[in-house]
């Protein structure tokens, strides 16, 4: 489904068609949940944030600027909500072993999980929030520099700088943990 379909669904929703909004929920609930999960490291928190994101987006739908992409708008809400929850819970600068459990695969996924994935997850969690955001958007959601700039509300140049620094830090963390090639 393309961006103009999203805009069309938004228009339908504003015209009173709630099913149109459910279509947007279906399309974006998984990526938004994953953004929140990567940022917050906790499934329950990620679910709460995902729910809040869709409720807030719904209530503010009339403020959505159709010149923007809907996904940029809703991702931005998700990032902001995740940051808010992080700050509220004073988790910003924490690094705790529990994160591994939060991002650990469910039982059915465990067979395909490997130690490297675990190490990468741990390393991502050690990044500061600004760096974590760009890694999440770039590598888990395949955003372009421009899309990241739009979502995060920062210049593209800053996005690149953060992303490259984040990768450098990740490389060093993994190297320090003995995870090389």
């Amino acid at each position: 489904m393309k961006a103009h379909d999203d805009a069309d669904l938004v228009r339908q929703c504003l015209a009173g068609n709630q099913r149109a909004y459910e279509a947007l929920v279906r399309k974006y609930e998984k990526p938004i949940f994953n953004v929140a999960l990567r940022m917050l490291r906790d499934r329950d928190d990620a679910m709460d944030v995902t729910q809040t994101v869709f409720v807030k987006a719904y209530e503010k739908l009339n403020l959505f600027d159709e010149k923007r992409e809907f996904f940029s708008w809703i991702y931005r809400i998700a990032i902001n909500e995740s940051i808010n929850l992080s700050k509220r819970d004073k988790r910003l600068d924490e690094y705790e072993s529990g994160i591994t459990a939060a991002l650990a695969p469910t039982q059915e996924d465990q067979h395909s999980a490997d130690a490297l994935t675990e190490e990468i997850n741990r390393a991502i969690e050690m990044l500061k929030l600004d760096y974590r955001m760009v890694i999440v958007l770039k590598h888990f959601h395949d955003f372009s520099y421009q899309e990241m700039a739009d979502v995060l509300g920062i210049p593209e140049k800053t996005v690149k700088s953060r992303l490259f620094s984040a990768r450098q830090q990740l490389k060093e963390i993994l190297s320090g943990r003995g995870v090389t090639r």
Partner: protein
Amino acid sequence: MIDPNTIEIMNLKLDGSATESQRETLHRLLETDPEAREHFEALRTLVSRLSAHPHVEPPSELHPRIVAAVAGARVPHRTAGIGAWWSAILSPPRFRLATTFGLGLVTGVFLLAAVQFGRLGTWGSLQDVNPAQVSGTMAPALASELLGSIPVPETEAGVHGDVTVFGGPGETVAEVSFDPGTPVSWILEFDPAALSVTRVETPGRGYFAVSQGQVHGTYPGEGPQRIVFSGRVQPVESLVLKVVKDDRVVFERSARPSR
């Protein structure tokens, strides 16, 4: 030591954003500088591994939770005014007769419903109950035994009200009531293993959303609102009321059994 400009070009290359001249520069460097080559290989491996991370599947209960929560949310404003809608629908002359007939029919049904049910309902209040979560019949509530209550003191919740819990054979009814004139958002939590929502009743324009173990409601400023459950609440303390203001829970209390 690799200079920052080279590291930037490496990153741009891996993201597919390097220019032709940047690619050529990097290619020459990698052919002659083992340190740069090693750095680039490590970076490429990292990017490749990061991008191979699959999305985690959200829990199955997430979607119904969102749908229920959205159903209880404020409806966004329409983009077009009623005047624009009205003129648009009437503008083709050949539609005027059909439109007039249709509106007359809708008005008739509406008035009939008002007479039948004794009050004017709204489509909004009907839509906001998630039908997938509601079951049962429209039989009158049998519950008459006072089981307990949840007083809501104004000093704690900023609004005065209460929830009164009645029981009957295989049925529990919670009546939610606040001081008139003040719309209030609330959540009533219950044990989904013991109770399931049969129906909800509200005067005026109240909203409800039912999800697993919770009923979200908006008190319309007149009451009471009634939530009818099939099943007998046991213990009555398992019913918990939360009052919500500005997306925050400002009051939370379990039901107290009556004496």
